[in-house]
């Protein structure tokens, strides 16, 4: 009996362990598949960082680049090979899925295996990396920029926003400063005899008319004005708040920097949304509506105003909307004056990602300069067009000095998109083609993006540091976000909201104010 039960135990253990091993192995394989390029780099980096003889222009420079990938598959070498030819380099791209990029970044960093060129993911990862930057883990590139004619064209005001303790460590990937505005149903507005809203009152009136006057003409009251989602920054709230004159995150008040939610304009904006919601002129569940659901509401023809997102999204929204409502016409708008008659737009710091050069991989100044040389090449129209648009004739054509992407979207997605997101600078600085737009609303949007900057409001804390903010700013902001929604839903009054602001201050907000002001005075 003993033997039998022993065998039984063993075989059941075995089955269990086989099962778990299988499960484990599966995960393992997946992990191995995604991590493989990384693993191979570890060794490769070691091999390539051998001090190569510095001035030897004939020999291609070997560069390893790590960057986030926003598509499902790693792009083929089509574009890479061309770039290598133009820049006399041998490039090794390590693409990692954007969804898990932070993880990859942190683990590579912890194990000292970051490659020579490291793209971060966004402003948040940059914020997290600041401490390591201060710790001297990355090369300061500021002093070398003037040696490179093309890199030297990068916009100083944006470079300034990416400085850490006043020193420049990064190159930036540029984005328009203020792309936000309204995308609205022009066919509805025309039908009801409304012009694009010139101020916040007209905006309110338009939302009301879109709800009550049956703009789709089906005889039923089944439309709403504004569709919004559970997002105070990239949803409608922040954009409308800047129209009301609320500062961009922080502004001076009585000679001191103060957060936006201590300004009366912030309350005015909350009142505006409260009124919209109470009247039924916006989706009632906006505090719980995801972006997908909000976009669906708009593209199904139920809502008339989409506020806050990038106006350049009009192309995609239009494409989906005319599937459901073939005769719909969309337009963009962003010049909405506040109650005081003034125009304003909040601005981002002008970049969406940055590149760092780890000291653990770039051994000396000579190597750093070689790598910067590559980026200098990337800032020429030739290379930036190649990386942003692809190969002329295959991925795009040029019409009237502008690039028209091929209709084969899958091809672009597969071969170009991976590189597109890594191009340094913007078309003003690297000379690449602007895109050729056909949709009138999109052409209008491009004009408005330029107009927005003229009345743009910058965030004065963009280049400032606050240790407390880095540690728990996001967590604290939740208090304000919750209070803002509760106010708009009528569950908090003004006194209640102010109590929450006090709560924010007592839990670390006061320190943030102090630290920003100390840094601001410097």
């Amino acid at each position, binding site marked *: 009996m*003993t033997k039998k039960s022993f*065998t039984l135990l063993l075989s059941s253990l075995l089955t269990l*362990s086989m099962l*778990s091993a299988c499960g484990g192995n599966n995960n393992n394989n997946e992990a191995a598949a995604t991590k493989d390029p990384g693993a191979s780099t570890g060794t490769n980096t070691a091999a390539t960082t051998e001090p190569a003889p510095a001035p030897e222009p004939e020999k291609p420079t070997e560069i390893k680049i790590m960057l986030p990938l926003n598509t499902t598959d790693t792009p083929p070498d089509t574009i890479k090979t061309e770039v290598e030819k133009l820049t006399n380099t041998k490039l090794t791209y390590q693409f990692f899925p954007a969804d898990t990029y932070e993880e990859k970044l942190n683990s590579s960093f*912890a194990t000292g295996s970051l490659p020579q060129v490291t793209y971060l993911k966004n402003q948040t990862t940059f914020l997290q990396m600041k401490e390591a930057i201060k710790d001297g883990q990355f090369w300061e590139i500021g002093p070398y920029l003037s040696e490179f004619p093309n890199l030297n064209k990068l916009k100083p005001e944006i470079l300034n926003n990416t400085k850490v303790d006043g020193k420049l460590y990064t190159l930036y990937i540029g984005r328009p400063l203020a792309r936000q505005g309204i995308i609205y149903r022009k066919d509805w507005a025309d039908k009801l005899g409304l012009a694009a809203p010139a101020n916040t009152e007209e905006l309110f009136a338009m939302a009301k008319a879109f709800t009550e006057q049956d703009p789709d003409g089906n005889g039923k009251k089944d439309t709403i004005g504004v569709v919004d989602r559970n997002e105070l920054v990239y949803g409608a709230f922040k954009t409308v708040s800047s129209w009301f004159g609320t500062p961009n995150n922080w502004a001076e008040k009585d000679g001191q920097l103060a957060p936006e939610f201590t300004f009366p304009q912030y309350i005015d904006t909350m009142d505006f949304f409260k009124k919209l919601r109470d009247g039924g002129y916006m989706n009632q569940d906006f*505090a719980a509506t995801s972006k997908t659901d909000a976009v669906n509401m708009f593209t199904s023809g139920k809502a008339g105003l989409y506020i806050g997102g990038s106006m350049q999204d009009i192309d995609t929204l239009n494409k989906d909307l005319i599937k459901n409502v073939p005769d719909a016409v969309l337009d963009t708008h962003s010049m909405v004056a506040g109650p005081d008659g003034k125009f304003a737009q909040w601005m981002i710091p002008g970049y969406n990602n940055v590149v760092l050069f780890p000291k653990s991989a770039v051994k000396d100044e000579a190597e750093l300069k070689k790598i910067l040389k590559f980026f200098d090449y990337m800032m020429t129209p030739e290379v930036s067009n190649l990386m942003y648009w692809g190969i002329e004739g295959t991925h795009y054509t040029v019409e009237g000095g502008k690039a028209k992407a091929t209709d084969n979207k899958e091809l672009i997605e597969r071969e170009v998109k991976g590189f597109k997101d890594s191009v340094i600078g913007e078309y003003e600085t690297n000379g690449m083609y602007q895109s050729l737009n056909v949709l009138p609303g999109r052409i209008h949007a491009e004009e408005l993006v330029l107009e927005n900057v003229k009345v743009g409001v910058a965030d004065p804390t963009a280049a400032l540091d606050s240790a407390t903010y880095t540690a728990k700013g996001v967590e604290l902001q939740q208090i304000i976000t919750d209070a803002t929604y*509760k106010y708009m839903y009528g569950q908090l009054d003004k006194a209640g909201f102010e109590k929450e602001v006090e709560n924010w201050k007592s839990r670390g907000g006061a320190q943030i104010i102090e630290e920003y002001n100390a840094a601001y005075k410097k």
Partner: protein
Amino acid sequence: MQEVTARPRTAPEPKPKRYKSSSELKKRLWRNKLLYVMLIPGVLYFIIFKYLPMYGLIISFQDYKPYQGITGSEWVGMKHFSRLFTEPDFLNILGNTLILFGMNILIYFPIPIILALMLNELRGTFFKRFFQTLVYVPHFMSWVIVVSISFVMVTMDGGIINELLAYFGFSKINFLLSPGWFRPMYIIQVIWREAGWGTIIYLASIAAIDPGLYEASRMDGAGRLRQVWHITLPAIRGVIITLFILKIGSVLDLGFEHVYLLLNSMNREVAEIIDTYVYTAGLRQGQFSYSTAIGFFKSIVGLIMVMTVNKVSKKIGEEGVY
């Protein structure tokens, strides 16, 4: 077998735990060598993926900096634990977690058992299979889809449930944004998605019951309900208790995704649980040490719960999980 039968019956010797000589042990190991070889992957799996990572728990006692590594980071003792326990919202978050867990145990846990008993009473293999498959399917939908489906159904802007309420003259209910509706929505979604899947083990153990028992009880005049009560339920009692103990182990581990998707600014006071708090406070800001400390705390609570319940279950004469 020979060994056992060769031993004289009169000597009630305990199981041979020691081998008389190491050569005998070797012989035994050698005879089953293939089985041991097959054991290796499983053992390696547990060492590599379950035991080695525990080393990382060290960082909950440090101010961990990725570039300084575990060896280089500063030791701070219980700082992160005391931060967690002194957090103003901590009691609220812990309370929310425990309430949801309690609902899971009291409301959700019995449902797969009842469902399995009901499925078992279905006659005709085709119907049985059909309904079984039907109740499994929701399990394969991700929480994102489950929550989106509910959103579409209960939204105030044309959701079918609110439209029905309005049609019958009731006022619309803001299911998504009122704190009072969060818990019912949560548990209904858990039941909808998981109840069918949860029946699998119960059905398997019901299938293993000796049909002779039912025949005998029928001879004695037992009806369907009697059979369920006196044969089926006692037969699967062991399985129920095992699953219950395992469930208890995950007391603070409700699954991040589901709650996070339902969470919004209006229902945070009842919906914020430890997992979602870890996400906002820890991971989104790269506070590795703090999040590890919270994870550590969760595991310890889970361990204590499992050991307690296991002990209690043994006390009342049931088998434990170990």
